[in-house]
């Protein structure tokens, strides 16, 4: 069916790339709602962590001022024990907080992931035509994981850093306002340096990303097209190009290394400057104010703790940006509406009594490029119908419409006189089984592939396999019906896959069988088995077959000859052959294909 896809325009895949978007954020936060209690607890824990982080230097101050300098050994022991208690408390809070945050993050991810998966699989085939599978897979996997970053590394870490900073500021101010202000003197410089560094680094990171993308594209292209490179002796030219790309990439990196090499020492030095200034001012004021040595020492420690969160904060920007882009892409898909859907109040169809009718059906995959034009025909219950026509004549599209993979643009399709759009999708599709040319094999065992997700009994599976002559080859597989089909060495041939698909269709016992016969060459033994299986499958069953086999065509009750989107001829084999029209030509091609060519003129 891939042939129907050619000519589809793949949608562009672009997002705005903002680091913060309140609309998206609000929507994300909605996913936190089921876990409100956990979120509140986590926030409280985060506050407690910030408090315990602040306690250390303060305890040291008390130890020095109240116990060490006055030489109070019992007091020192007491404060040490308090310290240990706080450390233990901090350990448990820390641990529990990390656990809780991850738990929330993972739960939300799980929720979004399953919602997204289910949403995608319910979207119409039009959507799948426009979006490559690889892209959809990325949405469900990597993009959802990136979202987790917003919660765990982004928002939470930012709040944590802000809490800690605010706490340090408050404690320092309350210990000694003037001294605190002296320490804060370096802050403006710190902000300027960080800001400058950030903007420079962001720019050079962007350069790195671009140049890396170039290297990867070039590499990918050269690996895939290596035979062209070698056939046209382009090795040295391409090597030179690669070397240049590589060099540009190196230079971008060296630039970034320079910024980082500069930034870290400057930040560190600013920290020391703050300490130096604090000591100098504190020493100068030592006698004048009643400032204690303990306060001074606590200040030194707080100052050291001050700078890490600030440089951390700027790191978070990139993470947030990536996650926002991911959420935008995910929500774009969640906003996508299914074009083919069940009606709100579906009609009931317990079983088919009369038959199928196409009435003046027009259909286009893309606006106005009609692949089916004014198609009308009817099939009675129990009839075997063959669709015949050249590639691109519209045979597959007829099947796509009957199963409601797509909906018609004009005209109507009826089952037992009722429009199929009045039925629920499930009810409609339960009447039909479809076997495609390229049989899709799922991972899992042979039995899994026959029953799919239903809980059919082993007996039902084996009976189905028996009827379509698949039992024999299945029994010869290493583990019979329990053989893993995707495992190496258990590969089954194209013909065997066909038989498996027949068994699958039979196990589901459909009222209508739709079949796209394989054109690929199959070994004679399997071919015979397939012929027999087909007869079993189609006996006493309404069937529509895109026919390539002469036997199928000859035995059909009705042959529809499609040519360029229209039904040009209709009737039985003998009748159509007498006509000497398109069917006769198609038939002759078929004959040449199977090597039965006898008389040529």
């Amino acid at each position, binding site marked *: 069916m891939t042939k129907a896809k050619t000519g589809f325009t793949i949608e562009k895949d672009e997002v705005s790339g903002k680091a913060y978007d309140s609309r998206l954020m609000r929507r994300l936060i909605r996913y936190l709602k089921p876990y409100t209690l956990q979120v509140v607890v986590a926030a409280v824990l985060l506050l407690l962590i910030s408090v315990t982080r602040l306690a250390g230097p303060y305890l040291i101050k008390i130890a020095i001022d109240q116990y060490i300098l006055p030489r109070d050994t019992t007091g020192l022991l007491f404060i040490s024990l308090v310290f240990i208690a706080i450390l233990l408390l*901090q350990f448990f809070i820390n641990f529990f907080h990390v*656990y809780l945050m991850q738990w929330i993050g993972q739960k939300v991810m*799980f929720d979004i992931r399953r919602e997204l998966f289910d949403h995608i*699989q319910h979207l119409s085939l039009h959507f799948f035509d426009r979006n490559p599978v690889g892209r959809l897979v990325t949405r469900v996997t990597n993009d959802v994981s990136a979202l987790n970053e917003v919660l765990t590394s982004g928002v939470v870490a930012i709040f944590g850093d802000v809490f800690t900073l605010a706490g340090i500021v408050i404690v320092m101010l309350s210990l000694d306002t003037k001294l605190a202000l002296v320490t804060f003197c370096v802050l403006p410089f710190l902000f300027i340096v960080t800001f400058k560094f950030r903007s420079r680094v962001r720019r050079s990171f962007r350069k790195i990303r671009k140049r890396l993308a170039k290297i990867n594209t070039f590499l990918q292209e050269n690996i895939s097209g290596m035979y062209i490179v070698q056939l046209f002796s382009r090795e040295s030219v391409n090597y030179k190009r690669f070397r240049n790309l590589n060099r540009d990439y190196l230079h971008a990196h060296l630039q970034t290394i320079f910024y980082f090499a500069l930034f870290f020492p400057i930040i560190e030095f600013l920290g020391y400057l703050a300490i130096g200034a604090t000591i100098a001012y504190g020493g100068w004021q030592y006698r004048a104010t009643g400032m204690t040595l303990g306060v001074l020492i606590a200040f030194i420690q707080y100052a050291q703790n001050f700078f890490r969160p600030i440089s951390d904060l700027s790191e978070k920007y990139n993470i947030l940006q990536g996650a926002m882009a991911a959420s935008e892409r995910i929500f774009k898909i969640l906003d996508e509406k299914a074009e083919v859907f069940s009606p709100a109040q579906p009609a009931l169809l317990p079983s088919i009594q009369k038959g199928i009718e196409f009435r003046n059906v027009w259909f286009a995959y893309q606006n106005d490029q009609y692949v089916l034009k004014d198609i009308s025909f009817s099939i009675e219950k129990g009839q075997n119908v063959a669709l015949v026509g050249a590639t691109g004549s519209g045979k597959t599209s007829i099947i796509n419409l009957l199963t409601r*993979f797509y909906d018609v643009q004009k005209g109507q399709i009826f089952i037992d006189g009722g429009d199929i759009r009045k039925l629920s999708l499930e009810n409609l599709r339960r009447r039909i089984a479809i076997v495609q040319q390229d049989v899709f094999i799922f991972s899992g065992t042979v039995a899994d592939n026959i029953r799919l997700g239903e809980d059919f009994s082993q007996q039902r599976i084996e009976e189905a396999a028996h009827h379509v002559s698949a039992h024999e080859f299945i029994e010869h597989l290493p583990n019979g019906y329990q053989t893993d089909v995707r495992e190496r060495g258990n590969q089954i041939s194209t013909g065997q896959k066909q038989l498996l698909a027949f068994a699958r269709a039979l196990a589901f016992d459909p009222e209508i069988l739709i079949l796209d016969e394989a054109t690929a060459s199959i070994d004679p033994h399997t071919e015979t088995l397939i012929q027999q299986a087909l007869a079993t499958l189609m006996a006493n069953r309404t069937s529509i077959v895109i026919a390539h086999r002469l036997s199928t065509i000859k035995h059909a009750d009705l042959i529809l000859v499609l040519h360029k989107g229209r039904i040009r001829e209709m009737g039985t084999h003998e009748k159509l052959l007498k006509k000497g029209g398109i069917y006769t030509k198609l038939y002759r091609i078929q004959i040449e294909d199977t090597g039965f060519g006898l008389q040529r003129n």
Partner: protein
Amino acid sequence: MTILKLKKYLRPYKGEYIWGSIALMFTVISGVLVPWLLQYPIDILKTTGANRQFFMSIGIFLLAALFSGIFRYFMRKVLIGVSRKIENDLRNDLFAHLQSLSLSFYHRFRTGDIMARATNDINAVRNLLGHGIMYFLSTFFYTLFALAMMSRIDVKLTLLALIPFPIVSFGVYRMMKYLYHISNRVQSIFSDITAKAQENFSGIRVVKAYNQERNQFHQFEKIAGNYLRQNIKLALLRGGTHAGITLITGLGLVLIIYFGGREVMAQKISLGKFVSFLAYMAQLTWPMIAIGWVINIFQMGSASLHRIYEYFDIRPEIRDTDEADNSITDLNGTIELKHVHFRYNPKADYVLHDITFSIGAGELVAIVGETGSGKSSLVNVITRLYQIQKGSITISGYPLEKIPLKILREKMGVVPQEDFLFSETIAENIAFSDHYKEMEEILAAADVARIGEEIVEFSDQYDTLLGERGINVSGGQKQRLAIARAVLKKPTILILDDAFSAVDTVTEKRILQNLKKDFPVTTKIIISHRVTSLRDADQILVFHDGKVVESGKHEELMRRNGKYAALFFKQLLQEELEKID
């Protein structure tokens, strides 16, 4: 050790490594000195108050901090810079090596795998050479110096301070191992999620047709739930490790506060020294964690290095051997195959069986047959992209192995079945074999391939960019560009492998006429499904199951009424059908 393999890459940067290490030593020394210098202002303040000496001591402290910063700058810039330069050299060499490898290599390794080694693995090696070495050295020296300074303050306290060291280092190392193990499991479940999504979305028709949405959802939910649980386990471990390190180092600090405080009381050490000691303790936290981390970097780096060298150790299968005769500088277009057998790998079946035929210079030869009958494999062995196992191929009377590869490739113009254009301009793609070609020649080649008229319709004409960042051309345009690319070489032998499948019959016939007219002495081998346009070929070879089953001129083969005749009639009918509206 695997790292020794890199000697060749390290040698050019010996000077930089030495200079970087010196900077590193100074960084460490000044870094150790800074907390040490902190004790003086405090002690002076405690005894005499803020005097000249007090401010001097702060000045010295800041000076040391400044030096520490300057050296740190040089250390990072040099040592990390070198690792990037080596990465650059390594990647260039890997690329050159990849170019020299035969197609059988690309048959064996998937693009994704090759890409992974050229990117991720090289990154891991670079990480080892840069951050790995830098952190290893600085951690080592820092710990050494800090301990020396600490023991100058107080030996007993230093021994106490050492207690958390082995616990944390060993703990981090073990955790890393375990984390690695669990991360692998998480990674593999993640692949399961990917596989499930991939399967569902590619098989969406079957899923929908058999009403399997709900069951599929449950299957997916099960895997995603498993992923959730393993991830929480991972988080617990990470969180535990992090909290554990904080706890143990914190306990170490309390130990020092208590015992150090008592020393201060006993006036064995000064308060300033006590503060310095606490500062050292704080700074030693990082090296403790770093050791486990560095070990991890080294392990990953050497595993990656191993993977990269796996490629470097593969020798190109097809290259000029001693047999190659450099006196061969020109070829005429005769080709002769005798009993050629070929298969893609020793375990597989032969795809060419006992092929024997000969082609005279300037002939037009058509090769027809079903998909998988061995036609493209024939192209692969004539162009020597693959090596045959049995039999012989001679071109211009020389065995293929004697002809220098450069000459062989220069004289052949090939349009492979899977046409591949590069993300370059149209002109660059046509002049792929020689990008100094004159524009006139490019125009002429485009005209032969009947693509010229369409190129001038594009916005930038011959400068139009193709591929990812450029425009997408249709299948037929691609094929004709590939033909232009091949004829530009003015080859002695021109091979078109199914090059007209997306080109309409009228254009195909015109291109064939152009080829006959403009390249009368060139041997033309044309593989095609459309036999009707090749009826006047000098020779037609019919392939079936890797063998030549029929050969001769059109009339002879038609008289024989075999495979060729069947094919020919079928196509005549198809063409007639096309004409009906």
